[in-house]
């Protein structure tokens, strides 16, 4: 028996102690600090614990859909009999990954799980992939997001390219064929490639939205021709100059039925056959998340039947179309953090009549400190179609001004900076109609904390 590594043991114990203290003091989930403490004592803690996982690890990265796709992967793997070690609460920087590993290991460094499922911040990928040695990397999409922190999406794509260049060729890269920039990165990977995408023109919007980001060919700088646009810059595209075009997806969604907030149903088509699946995850953007998780699990050897069962039984992550109750009224939390995601959330919400919504905009680091992106969201679609809008958060005034220019009637709008009072105002106005709560990331965490105190939801670390 090998000597126990005292340094590793000390790091694990210290990390676990910090996590327990954080919870006991009511300081929250302790999803990051335990990792920082453990890394301080044993800088290689992530690599050591990840390599002890019998079935290896998978990484999910991209701007939108990381949390949902990685939770779905973890859920499907559970149905296939594998226990995941997973940063479920979405702490997706290096310390959050270390914290999840520490939490799910014995003090001797033995993992309490079979496989690692890690959502990784898109800019953090180059810093953690060597330690995690993933069997698969899932690239969901690249949208402009938090420009103050990351700069430009071309820079992120460049970092991904460099990361994939150093990857063990046996690892699979699962990528979104409908996103031209992601696809450009994925198709250059010389190892196992698994493209996923939507094959249904009826999901198309007709035209590119204002917020479409990567609409110029990476090689030529000329605009792509789109045969179909699903949302943002997702679609079926082709460069008229160099001929670069969307690769044919191996895993695809066909015959898509969009049931609004109730979710979608489609034919999941894979090299292992096709199956009809249905999900409670709403919106076309979640079809991509389901495809990403399906393709990843197929690569890990999960049977198609188990994947279909997993999709049908999955419940959304906190804040992602999560059903909650506010003062006894039914409400849906829909995280909205960038223009493409916000447009999809608005479109999904507006499929119902007589909308009452609470929009909560914060500008803390995790939200992006620059809120100019609000002007790239197509709030114009709310004009004349919202019965009541309550605007809240640190930048409530900016949101109200944006709605004014979107043509929203000022008489349906209430500005209430305090989130608890804004919740009360929105619930009071809902009057039997469904209440939609659209917060940025930190506003979502604060709103859940308020609802949790009222006994309406569980803590995100218990979820």
């Amino acid at each position: 028996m090998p000597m126990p590594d005292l340094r590793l043991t000390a790091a694990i114990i210290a990390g676990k102690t910090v996590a327990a203290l954080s919870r006991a003091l009511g300081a929250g989930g302790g999803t990051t600090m335990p990792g920082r403490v453990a890394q301080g004592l044993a800088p290689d803690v992530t690599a050591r614990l990840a390599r002890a996982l019998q079935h290896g690890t998978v990484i999910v990265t991209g701007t939108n859909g990381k949390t949902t796709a990685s939770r779905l992967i973890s859920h499907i793997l559970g149905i296939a009999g594998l226990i995941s070690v997973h940063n479920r609460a979405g702490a997706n920087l290096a310390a959050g990954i270390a914290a999840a590993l520490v939490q799910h290991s014995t003090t001797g460094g033995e993992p309490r799980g079979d496989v690692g499922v890690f959502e990784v911040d898109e800019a953090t990928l180059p810093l953690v992939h060597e330690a995690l040695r993933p069997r698969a990397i899932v690239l969901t999409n690249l949208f402009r997001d938090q420009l103050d922190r990351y700069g430009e999406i071309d820079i992120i794509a460049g970092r991904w390219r460099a990361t994939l260049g150093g990857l063990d060729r046996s690892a699979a890269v699962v990528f979104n064929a409908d996103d031209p920039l992601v696809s450009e990165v994925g198709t250059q990977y010389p190892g196992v490639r698994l493209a996923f995408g939507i094959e249904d023109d009826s999901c198309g919007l007709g035209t590119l939205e204002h917020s479409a980001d990567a609409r110029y060919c990476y090689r030529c700088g000329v605009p792509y021709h789109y045969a179909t646009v699903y949302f943002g810059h997702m679609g079926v595209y082709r460069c008229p100059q160099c001929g670069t075009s969307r690769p044919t997806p191996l895993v695809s969604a066909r015959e898509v039925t969009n049931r609004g907030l109730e979710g979608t149903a489609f034919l999941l088509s894979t090299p292992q056959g096709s199956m009809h699946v249905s999900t409670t995850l709403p919106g076309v953007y979640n079809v991509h998340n389901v495809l990403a998780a399906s393709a990843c699990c197929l690569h890990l050897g999960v049977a198609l039947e188990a994947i279909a069962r997993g999709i049908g039984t999955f419940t959304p992550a906190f804040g992602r179309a999560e059903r909650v109750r506010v003062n006894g009224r039914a409400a849906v939390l829909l995280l909205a953090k960038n223009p493409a995601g916000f447009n999809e959330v608005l479109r999904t919400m507006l499929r119902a009549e007589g909308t009452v919504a609470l929009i909560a905009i914060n500008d803390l680091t995790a939200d992006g400190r620059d809120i100019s992106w609000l002007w790239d969201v197509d709030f114009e679609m709310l004009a004349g179609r919202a019965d009541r809008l309550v605007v809240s958060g640190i930048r409530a005034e900016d949101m109200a001004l944006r709605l004014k220019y979107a043509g929203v009637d000022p008489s349906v709008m209430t500005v209430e900076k305090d989130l608890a009072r804004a919740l009360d105002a929105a619930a009071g106005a809902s009057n039997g109609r469904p209440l939609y709560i659209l917060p940025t990331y930190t506003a979502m965490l604060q709103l859940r904390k308020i609802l949790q105190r009222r006994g309406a939801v569980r803590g995100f670390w218990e979820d």
Partner: protein
Amino acid sequence: MSGVDLRICHLYPDLLNLYGDRGNLMTLAGRARWRGVEVRIDEHGLREPLRPDEHDLYFIGGGEDRQQRLAAEDLRAVKGPALKDAAASGAVILAVCGGYQLLGHYYRPSEGEDLVGLGLLDLITEHPGPAAPRLIGNIVIRASILGGATLVGFENHGGRTRLGPGARPLGEVVSGSGNNGVDRTEGAVAGHVYGTYLHGPLLPKNPRFADHLISAALRRRHGEVTLAALDDSLEEDAHGAALARAAVR
């Protein structure tokens, strides 16, 4: 205000649109229309030539490096001469961030060749290299053209801009970095050509500056036009919230 019209030209709307820049167009158009001014907005992308007498106001936004280079080449080769003629005849030009840099003599990136600018503003911009921090954050300036009133916004730029004797700063930095993080200047003005690093976008929360630009643009063909007062309470609240965010009282 019958018979009064404003013709706006939005340059490179699908290349230079990084920071909610269309909010500036919405504000110019909205505030003019609310006064009964008829507004037309034309979009001019790559390879589409300009006629110097066609527009009263030109707007150029900011973009990513690749897009900025495409725009720079087009600006010089296709639109530059007409834009210079327009500026000389009293048309207003507003340029934000990347567009601002392109109105100067050149932009020297941290790697690659210089982008030659139009020279409409007497300034140069140089990137101090990949190791230098970007200048990012909430920013407040005092604008001399508005009698020292504050302008609020957000800045995010790697390049450092220095003004020559032919350009005045748009304002003095109260909080934030401004042109270069050193000399406390922000933006540049020469005649009716305005450049600034402030986005957020710039005009919705700074309605006085928006009106200043509208008046100047209308003057070219309509002479002095009095703009009626508007209910700016939401604008003032948002301006105040941005001052508070930048910790300015």
